[in-house]
């Protein structure tokens, strides 16, 4: 049965925060030690559940940021003002704290390093997280599959993983990254601020003839716009996988 998952239902497990690493002013990466964790696929997510002393319990979904690694998983959490879960994970959770977690979840929005087709990733804000897992998984697998990322952020200070992406473009052969700065472009940047549009998708993406696999992740409106633009540009809707954030995030 090599290469086939052992079929089992998901259940909650307890993870211990090993590290809390700031990414931007409002986002942190939490590395979690999970003794029962075996592996995951790039693009999958986990559900995190917090329970108050009075028994009130609430949960949210977070994309996995890391490449597969037994016993360890990383999530990157963007603080949502008025959220019920993210402010705790961003501002309070510290090494040694325990969290309840369920996963890995999802077989739809996933990329496998064995897939030969070129890949286009389009991220809006913290929608970068599952797409970063794909770039990291590609490098960890030694894949040469051409992969291009278009990353839409408000300004340069909002870009999560910016340093690592710069390094990967230099070191990981066949990875390209382009940015769309929607409000404030960095000083000396050769371009104009603005949203992802057909021209940016054309310049930073792949022609439809190459039939790339496409993954789009971000807020609902962003994903809707980008998916429509890609279909207008001739991409097969069946090759476009999307993951939208909810209205509350949290």
């Amino acid at each position, binding site marked *: 049965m090599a*290469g*086939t*998952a*052992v*079929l*089992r*239902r*998901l*259940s909650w497990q307890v993870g211990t925060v090993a590290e809390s690493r700031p990414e931007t002013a409002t986002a942190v990466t939490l590395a979690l030690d999970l003794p029962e964790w075996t*592996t*995951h*696929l*790039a693009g999958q*997510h986990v*559900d995190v559940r917090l329970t108050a002393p009075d028994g009130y319990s609430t*949960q949210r*979904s977070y994309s996995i940021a890391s*490449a*597969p690694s037994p016993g360890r998983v990383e999530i990157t959490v963007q603080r949502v003002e008025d959220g019920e879960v993210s402010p705790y994970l961003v501002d309070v959770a510290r090494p040694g704290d325990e969290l309840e977690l*369920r*996963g890995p*979840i*999802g*077989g*739809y*929005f*996933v990329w*496998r*390093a*064995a897939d030969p087709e070129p890949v286009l990733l389009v991220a809006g804000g913290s929608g970068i997280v599952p797409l970063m897992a794909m770039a990291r*998984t590609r490098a*960890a*697998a030694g894949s040469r599959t051409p992969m291009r990322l278009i990353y839409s952020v408000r300004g340069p200070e909002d870009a999560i993983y910016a340093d690592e992406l710069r390094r990967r473009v230099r070191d990981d052969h066949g990875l390209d990254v382009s940015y769309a700065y929607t409000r404030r472009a960095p000083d000396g940047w050769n371009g104009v601020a603005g949203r992802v549009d057909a021209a940016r998708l054309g310049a930073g993406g792949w022609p439809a003839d190459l039939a790339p696999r496409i993954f789009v992740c971000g807020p*609902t409106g962003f994903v809707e716009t980008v998916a429509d633009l890609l279909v207008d540009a001739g991409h097969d809707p069946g090759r476009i*996988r*999307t*993951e*939208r*954030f*909810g*209205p509350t995030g949290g």
Partner: protein
Amino acid sequence: MTETWVDGNALGGALGEIFAMDVTAALGRCAGCGRVGPVGEAQVFTRAAGAVARCAGCESVLIRVVTAPDRVFLDLHGLSFLELRPAPATP
């Protein structure tokens, strides 16, 4: 203003406690319009008690799942079939 929704992926956790195979990657047929597609493409609304997945083609209800402390209510009457397959574990 239309209510916002998320993708079928969002049901993965709740359904993953019920099914041993991933339902979000499964192909489902809408009992309303006959559209066949991955459950991950459905439109999921989470404002109601529990979650409701609607067909991306005709907006008929495909799946309703409500998780209570001691039980789960699952309504699949909007799906006329589901084609599930075990996913390869290799990354």
